[in-house]
Each structure stands twice: as structure tokens, then as C-alpha cells.
């Protein structure tokens, strides 16, 4: 379960979770994104970043819904509790990650003289860029 890779120790568990998440994602891939439209009520108190925040007037600092981020985090059996701040920071980091990978993949599309980003551009970026090594073998 534990492997040493380049001097760092990884537990492989998150990879197994990743596999589950990615597989299940195949089901929910329709454009009917219901959770994008409605906010889950019960999570109101911790979703400081929601535009429908009950406190009202609280500016939206994260684009990704904290409730969904937390749901993902909970997939980790080792995780007991997470502060609201940590959920927010992970949400923010994920947004930065999306920006980064999109931009890096674009380079490959441009090399191919294309204006449309395609799956293979993602694959190329993942293969070429060290920071994305963790993604290898995890996507559909």
C-alpha cells in the first residue's frame, strides 16, 4: 500500500478512491447538471462561498461548491474531521489546478494548430509535466 517514489512516500489509497470517483463519473456525465443549479440545503451553514448563502451578502470567494468538495474529501476513510477553512482552501486549490491544466494542455492544441482543446492534449500535458504525474492512470 505504501510505495516510495522519488524519495517521497505515497499511500496508494487515494488512487483507489480516484478510480471509484472516475468510474462513477461516467454515470453523471450528462449535461443535466442538477447539482449545479440547486444548492443542497443542509450544507448551508458551511458553504460560505455559495451565492445562496443564508447569511446573505457574503461574497462568493470560491466557485466550486464547498459541499461537493467536502463530499469528495469524505471518500477518504482516513479523514475524520476537516475545518471549514481547509475545505475552502482545497476548493480554491482545485480551481487553480483546473486553470493550470487547461492552460498547459492548450500548448499542445496550439502545437497541433488547433483551436479546440482535445482529450489528447490533456494526455500529453499529463505525461510531460511533473506536477501532473499523480494523474497518470487515473482518468477514464
Amino acid at each position: 500500500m505504501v510505495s516510495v517514489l522519488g524519495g517521497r512516500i505515497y499511500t496508494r489509497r487515494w488512487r483507489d478512491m480516484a478510480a471509484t470517483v472516475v468510474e462513477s463519473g461516467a454515470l453523471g456525465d450528462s449535461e443535466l447538471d442538477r447539482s449545479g443549479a440547486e444548492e443542497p440545503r443542509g450544507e448551508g451553514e458551511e458553504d460560505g462561498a455559495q451565492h445562496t448563502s443564508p447569511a446573505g451578502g457574503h461574497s462568493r470567494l470560491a466557485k466550486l461548491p464547498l459541499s461537493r468538495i467536502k463530499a469528495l474529501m469524505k471518500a477518504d476513510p482516513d479523514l475524520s474531521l476537516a475545518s471549514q477553512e481547509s475545505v475552502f482552501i482545497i476548493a480554491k486549490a482545485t480551481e487553480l489546478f483546473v486553470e493550470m491544466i487547461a492552460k498547459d494542455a492548450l500548448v499542445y492544441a496550439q502545437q497541433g494548430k488547433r483551436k479546440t482543446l482535445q482529450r489528447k492534449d490533456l494526455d500529453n500535458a499529463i505525461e510531460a509535466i511533473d506536477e501532473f504525474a499523480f494523474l497518470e492512470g487515473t482518468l477514464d
Partner: protein
Amino acid sequence: MAERPEDLNLPNAVITRIIKEALPDGVNVSKEARRAISQAASVFVLYATSCANSFAMKAKRKTLNAGDVMSAMEEMEFERFLPPLRDALEAYKKGQKGKKEASEQKKKDKEKKNGTEEHDKSREEEEEEEEHMEEEDGENEGEEEDVEN
């Protein structure tokens, strides 16, 4: 605690928006690329959580905090994220403080209305204690969710 499978993925609309805002005008993104990015984002969350959690466990804490996530970013070689994350955290903390003060003000106003003058003194003392605790344990107050598996 069963989560519907589709809930473990991030909303397509938001992911799409983030991608579009990151790329120059005129660039399109295929559905497959979008899907792959969305999946990658989910994996990122899992990996970051796992990494951050190991820092918390090392420090013998049961609650993951923002510092753990920052350490995780370094570990994952995403140091470039640290400055914007620190800024965002500051803004978030300010926002949370404002929210708390607003709801406390509401509480006080409510009590005034109810005219519980004689009870006010002891009540206020209690409230102050609570306030104090809340400020200290800002992170822990009612915001943790028991992750039972």
C-alpha cells in the same frame, strides 16, 4: 452516509466556466477534454486531501486545517498555488468573521426585543464566553462534520 455517485464529481457548469476564463477567447474545449479535466479535478481533491491528512496525522490532530493543505500543496509540488491561496484564505477569514458578527448582532437585537432585561447580565456574560471560545476555535465551531465511514 451514502453519496450518490454523481455527487462525487464537480459541477460541469462551474468547471467549464473556470476553463473558459483561463483560456483566451476563441478557444474551444471538446466535451471529452472537459470531462477529463473534471475527473482530474476530482482526483486532485482526493490526492490533496490524502496528502494534507498525513500532515494532520503526523501532528496528532484529528482535524484537518488550512495549514495542512498548504503543506500538502508544497509536497505535491504546487508551490505556485501558495501565494494566491494565502490571499484567498485571508479574504475568507475576514468574510467568516463578518458573518459571525452579523449573526451575533442579530442575536443581540433579538434579545433586546424580547426585553429580558433582568436576565441580560448573566446572559451577556455567557455570550461573551461563547464569543471568546468561538474566536479561538473559529475553525472548529460547528463546522466540522463527522466523517463516519
